[in-house]
């Protein structure tokens, strides 16, 4: 690290600031309350220069709240943020960036129709000729190229964001933070959207950044990655630091620390006993919302008593495939049969009624009505049939007793069945959806990303319920971008890439091979790479 040059326009006062020693960060007794809820309870963390510090915790443990305070999006009620032995107050991300702290959010903050260089300059534009001057695009572009070369992060400054794959978009976010000359980078669940290969690349980038003296705070709940990259691990549970660990700690121990009890990470199941074919999809063609072909001639078969897993990086047509089966999306061509019944053209209501259970991938968007109570959400697709009601009225008593039963059966943690689903944690919301869809006799159960944003404890439970459903003779279709999940649950794995099924493999296939298939690389067509 040579002289600290600020690549972009900065607020007055900070421009002359130079620092040659890498940044050391201390959080001392950080406490944040939201009403009666203590989101962060006297948290102490020290991030040494040049280390990858993993922050491990379940959803809702308070990781994001903590990082938002560090990045100036929230202000702590108590405690201090100390940068290089100097207490600092961050009123906005601008202050945090000026102090050398950058953040890459889980959901990228990029404008899809802008170029890479424009996105990187956004918020710190090079302007010539005073406040009403014009943009100096040439200089922005040069800065991008320089930064990307310095850190070995190749990005094309002229590409449009919307044309880039997710991994490249994330690289743009990292370059964006680095052009602000930050010395500490917060990565919030960075691998959630990446393929195994992209994840591997990211880990390499992280290693080279720390080698250059940058520190990284790595927020995640994926234990494997933590073990692979972290120098130190801090585990947070219910707003408190419950322990620090070294990367040598076993996954089981880390999970137990995270959840507060012993967790079984393996999905326990006996070999499948497949029966008759239940779902048969042939030559299916479906378009996405923009009218672009998303599913391009898919043939699939799911038999009773087996779990068919669809592996694939998000955005390769899995969503559209499942929505077409559920009657939520028009079918351009092809056939979908549930045993002998043709599902194409049927309404979603009739499909659900013919013995199909469906857990949509986006829980808060499609799965639950947050303004509704747990009771109401548990009958969201059964409200007008026995025993809950008929076409005219709903039997409140039956709804309530059903809710009591399901809350107990599925271990849904809520104050009462009458409390709003929006007040529940992600894992418990997901249990509401799973409980609802499994509370009637099924022939086919479809689960998209069944454990996304769900804590480790609930993942274990949801997986065991899915296997239980399979063992009762239901045909199960699981779609997940988490390879571990697909491998753990499925009896057969279909790998989907660009709207097609590239291969159907056994779960015993080496991960590496499945990972390559997810990236579109099959043994016989190596040019499919990249």
């Amino acid at each position, binding site marked *: 690290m040579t002289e600290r040059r600020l690549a972009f326009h900065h607020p007055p006062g900070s421009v002359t600031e130079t620092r040659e020693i890498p940044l050391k960060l201390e959080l001392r007794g950080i406490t944040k309350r939201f009403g009666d809820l203590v989101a962060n309870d006297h948290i102490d963390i020290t991030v040494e220069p040049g280390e990858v510090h993993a922050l491990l915790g379940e959803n809702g443990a308070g990781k994001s709240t903590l990082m938002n305070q560090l990045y100036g999006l929230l202000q702590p009620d108590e405690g201090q943020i100390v940068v290089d032995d100097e207490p600092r107050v961050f009123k906005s991300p601008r202050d945090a960036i000026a102090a050398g702290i950058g953040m890459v959010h889980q959901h990228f903050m990029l404008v899809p129709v802008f170029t890479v260089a424009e996105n990187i300059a956004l918020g710190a534009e090079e302007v010539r000729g005073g406040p009403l001057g014009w943009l100096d695009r040439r200089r922005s572009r040069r800065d991008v190229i320089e930064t990307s070369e310095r850190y070995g992060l190749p990005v094309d400054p002229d590409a449009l964001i919307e044309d880039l794959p997710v991994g490249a978009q994330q690289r743009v976010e990292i370059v964006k933070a680095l052009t602000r000359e930050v010395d500490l980078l917060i990565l919030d669940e960075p691998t959630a959207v990446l393929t195994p290969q992209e994840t591997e690349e990211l880990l390499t980038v992280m290693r080279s950044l720390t080698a250059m003296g940058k520190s990284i705070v790595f927020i995640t709940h994926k234990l494997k990655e933590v073990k692979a990259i972290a120098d130190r691990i801090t585990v947070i549970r219910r707003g408190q630091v419950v322990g620090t660990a070294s990367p040598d700690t076993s996954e089981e121990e880390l999970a137990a620390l995270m959840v507060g009890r012993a967790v079984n990470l393996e999905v326990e199941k006996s070999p499948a006993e497949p029966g008759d074919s239940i779902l048969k999809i042939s030559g299916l063609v479906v378009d996405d919302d923009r009218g672009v072909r998303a599913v391009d001639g898919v043939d699939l078969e799911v038999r009773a008593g087996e779990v068919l897993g669809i592996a694939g990086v998000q955005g390769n047509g899995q969503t559209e495939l499942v929505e077409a089966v559920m009657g939520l999306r028009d079918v351009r061509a092809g056939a979908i049969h549930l045993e002998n019944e043709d599902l194409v053209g049927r*309404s979603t209501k009739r499909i659900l009624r013919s013995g199909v259970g469906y857990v949509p991938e986006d829980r808060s968007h499609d799965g*639950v*009505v947050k303004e509704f109570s747990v009771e109401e959400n548990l009958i969201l*697709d059964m409200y*007008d049939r026995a025993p809950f009601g008929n076409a005219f*009225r*709903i039997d*409140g008593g039956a709804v309530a007793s059903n809710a009591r039963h399901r809350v107990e059966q599925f271990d849904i943690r809520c104050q009462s069945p009458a409390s709003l689903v929006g007040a529940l944690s992600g894992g418990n919301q997901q249990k509401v959806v799973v409980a609802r869809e499994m509370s009637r006799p099924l022939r086919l159960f479809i689960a998209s990303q069944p454990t996304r944003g769900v804590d480790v404890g609930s993942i274990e439970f949801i997986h065991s319920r899915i296997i239980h459903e399979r063992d009762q003779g239901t045909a199960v279709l699981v779609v997940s971008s988490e390879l571990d999940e697909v491998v753990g649950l499925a009896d057969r794995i279909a790998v989907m890439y660009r709207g097609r099924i590239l291969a159907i493999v056994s779960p015993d296939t080496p991960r590496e091979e499945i990972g390559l298939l997810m990236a579109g690389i099959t043994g016989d067509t190596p040019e499919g790479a990249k």
Partner: protein
Amino acid sequence: MKRFWSANNFTLTALSMIMAVVIGAVLIIISDSTVLAKFAYFTARPSDAVSASWLLVSTAYADLLKGAIGDPAVFSAWFSGEATWQQAFAPISETLTYAAPLVFTGLSVALAFRGGLFNIGAQGQAVLGCIAAGIAGFTFGLPIVLNLIVAVVAGVLGGALWGFIPGLLKARTGAHEVITTIMLNYTAGLFLAWLVIQQGIQAPGRSDAISKAVAESAQLPSPGGVLRVHLGIVLAVLTTAGVAWLLNKSAFGFEIRAVGANPHAAKTAGISVAKTYVLLMAVAGGLAGFGGATQVLGTAHALTPSVAGNIGFDGLLVALLGRNRPWGTLFAALLFGALRAGGNRMQSFSGISLELVTVLQALIVLFIAAPALVKAIFRLRASRATGLGASLAKG
């Protein structure tokens, strides 16, 4: 008490009303030149200005209350036999008369809103209700009771038609209901203005724009005399109960609320969002049409271009004030009715123009629509109970 002082809906509504009354008082003072003149020598003799202001404001608001609820003097006169009970209850009767149609239009807007639709078209739907009920009322000449029922049903159907059209347009083409209902408001208003001067509709022997009178058998029964109140208010309460049941207990109400809160989740759960929109708009239109029918059959007894007054647009405010809940809407409508009835008396006794009442109504709604403002003024503790801001933002 601590609970009261947190920012719940009830507290916010009450405080909004207090703020409106205070600002109204200021307006009353500055619009009166004689009181204002006393402020010219305020530093010399402040008591003059203060007592004059107090007298003016207190008389004005006392008249408002007397006109809306009742005058104690008239009650004591009734007890001593110098006045009739009808006179004593005339103010309440006025309040209920003004409130009745607003209950229906308020329910129309509130119900649509719960389903995620912003029904600006309650006015047009009410006008169609007026037209259909009015024409049915003076055309068929059916026997008593039956004539009334037919006229009311006609009004409901008229409004339902005017709600069904934007619902269908939204479901089929995605046309936004705000735009289409505003347009249909103009259409309905102009159609009424044209209709009342057509032969066969216009009252015989009249050159002004008024239709034939509704047959007596089709009118909503009323005690008569100074008591203008009619069966409409009873129907309004029953309808409120019906809408409350529909919304909270029926399968259709479940669909409405699900679609209104999260149409994507509703669709995923197999609820047809398009069908719900169409049916909901028709029902909402029917409610507004019912309101129009009570106006014609209960109060006006004939069609004029302005027979529907402003009941549809006031319905928007009533629904807002009632926070889109059926019973809340009923009480909001009663409040609006009371303000209107009291305003009449305030105008004739205190000489304060009726527009002040409109300003008061507007201020109450304004403060309720901006809960952050009221919270800031009274430093209320934060509470998540106020769903209105969010629901407005969504609309």
